[in-house]
């Protein structure tokens, strides 16, 4: 497809355990267009990080294995690449930032050195030129006094500044795709607002695509062009940001949106809750993975797992309520509990 920069098909990544293979992502399919933002949302343990580490092929180092599927980036299948090839792709074409900026920074080198170093890893330029570009990049991410700051060490900076440095380091080679795994979760809302604004501006200026992983539906609403909702290793719903918020369809998505205390709603009222908790990937229920918590579960849900189907144009849901055989249950049923 023309505009697709990244296209993941049927990706299964798992961990070998005593009890067999625990599939952290189970035949998931996703795609991102050039210059656009895909948000992956879901609660902790749903497989968001494993999915993103798989794209970078870093999951190999976390003890994970890609068992099935393809990860096409500009048409090339990353799942089939050697780690040696990946070294050139990582950093230069695809960059990644994590929740904890300290994990990406080396405490014993100045930040200017670290940014210049990652440039020289991918480009044949002189040290002074790399240093100059590093300072430009620090300027671009809004670090005041970049010449001075470039000579400082990570511990001399605040959390928000470190995350800016990490973003500078990730973007210095002008990658086509940035994967950001909860980049603002550890930050205050005020600093989060700065970082999100920065990401949007850099996306405009550099034309890069972003895969943004978050558990905050507010962040997703603000940043996403498309949203994929993950639950226990599966994508249960995928669509445009407007479809997900205006026509949430999977009972899990609806429950998630309704559980958030709003800023306009009535204070102190009992909140909507999804009963129970997310199952462990080592101990999944039979049938639909959401069935023990689902208010709409019917007999079939306990035996057969629904696939991800396009039930409206460009809007995908994995739920029997929306499959053609289950059509008797569709329209209106999902929005009953939706008071947003």
């Amino acid at each position, binding site marked *: 497809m023309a505009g697709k920069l990244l296209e993941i098909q049927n990706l299964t990544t798992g961990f070998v355990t005593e009890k067999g293979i625990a599939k952290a992502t189970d035949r998931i399919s996703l795609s991102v267009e050039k210059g656009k933002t895909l948000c992956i949302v879901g*609660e*902790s343990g749903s497989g968001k990080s494993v999915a993103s580490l798989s794209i970078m092929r870093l999951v190999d180092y976390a003890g994970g294995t890609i068992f099935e599927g393809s990860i096409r980036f500009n048409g090339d299948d990353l799942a089939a690449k050697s780690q040696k090839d990946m070294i050139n792709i990582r950093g230069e074409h695809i960059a990644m930032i994590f929740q904890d900026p300290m994990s990406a920074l080396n405490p014993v080198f100045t930040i200017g050195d670290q940014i210049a170093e990652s440039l020289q890893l991918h480009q044949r330029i002189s040290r002074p030129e790399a240093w100059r570009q590093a300072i430009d990049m620090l300027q671009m991410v809004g670090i*005041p006094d970049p010449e001075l700051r470039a000579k400082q060490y990570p511990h001399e900076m*605040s*959390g*928000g*500044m470190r995350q800016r440095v990490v973003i500078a380091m990730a973007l210095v080679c002008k990658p086509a795709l940035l994967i950001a795994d909860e980049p603002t979760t550890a930050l*205050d*809302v*005020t*600093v*989060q*607002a*700065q970082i*999100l*604004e920065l990401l949007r501006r850099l996306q405009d200026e550099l034309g890069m695509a972003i895969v943004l992983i978050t*558990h*905050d*539906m*507010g*962040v*997703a*609403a*603000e940043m*996403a062009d498309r949203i994929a909702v993950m639950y226990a290793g599966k994508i249960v719903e995928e669509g445009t*940001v*407007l479809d997900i*918020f205006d026509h949430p369809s999977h009972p899990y998505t609806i*429950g*998630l*949106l309704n*559980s*958030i*205390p*709003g*800023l*306009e*709603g009535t*204070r*102190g009222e*009992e*909140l*909507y*809750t*999804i009963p129970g*908790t*997310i199952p462990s990937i080592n101990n999944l229920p039979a049938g639909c993975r959401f069935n023990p918590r689902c208010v709409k579960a019917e007999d079939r849900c306990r035996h057969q797992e629904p696939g991800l189907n396009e039930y409206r144009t460009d809007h995908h849901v994995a739920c029997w309520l929306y499959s053609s055989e289950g059509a008797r249950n569709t329209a209106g049923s999902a929005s009953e509990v939706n008071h*947003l």
Partner: protein
Amino acid sequence: MTQQPLIDVRNLKKYFPIKTGLFNRVVGHVKAVDDVTFGIHQGETFGLVGESGCGKSTLGRAILQLQKPTSGEVLFDGRSVQQMNAKQLRHLRQDMQIIFQDPFGSLNPRFHIRDIIGEPLRVHQQVSAAEIDKRVVELMELVGLDATRRNRYPHEFSGGQRQRIGIARAIALNPRFIVADEAVSALDVSVQSQVLNLLMKLQKELGLTFLFIAHGLNVVRHISDRIGVMYLGRLVEVGRTEELFANPRHPYTAALLSAIPRPSPHRKQERIVLQGDVPSPANPPAGCRFHPRCIYAQDKCRVLSPELVTLASEHQVACHYPLEALSHSEVI
């Protein structure tokens, strides 16, 4: 309200010494809580918000006397905590409890759930093992845990369940006042709403008074009757929840509220993006501590620290040039 508050905090300060490595000489102080005055009424939930490091947890711990205040006074039900004798303090410890953020770190991994929840009973009350067990079952049912699992260990429970264990333990001695320090912050939304409902239910049933510390502003809004906004060790604004959200009068509160990402793609709200980071509380700016980041700062702000003054009923602000009060319709 003219009624005497259950918790009455007066000019409370908590400074931490900064020492040099070599001679252990005190070279300065982190003014984590610097002259804070406010009250919490019986049965009320008072929310405390502000950026990381502004002193919320320190204030909570100083009120509970878990950390000795540097100066100032805390009155519990009209009696000064500082002047209590050992016996009175022991009673006070039963009346005031804390729930922590980390449902993983705050529970001893080698203890059965039964012992974790029952421990305060064993320490503070002379009751038989059978009575403790009965009470543990009661408490577990009250917080929505399966009491038949009381002989299990913490790691066998999910994050939300562990938070319920922490809550059961906190209410074991029928306290009157609970500090919930980021009690739901580490939980996923679907579990967070379960625990929030539990806290609200317990408050109604047991008449509890809460100091609710959290950085999730929508959560604080939902649960709190009144909210205090802290900045660098100071309370800069206090007001009833609806009023504070509709009519923030301190520029910092306005910026903080505008930074919340709204879970709706249609509301692209005007945002006041604050520049820079929170300055270090070891070396706070002179005058108004917010002035280096404040777009309204004037000369006066750079030299004179504003006092917390009452602007409208139950609405206090520490700012020389408070924002105009808007009508509700303009905001929502």
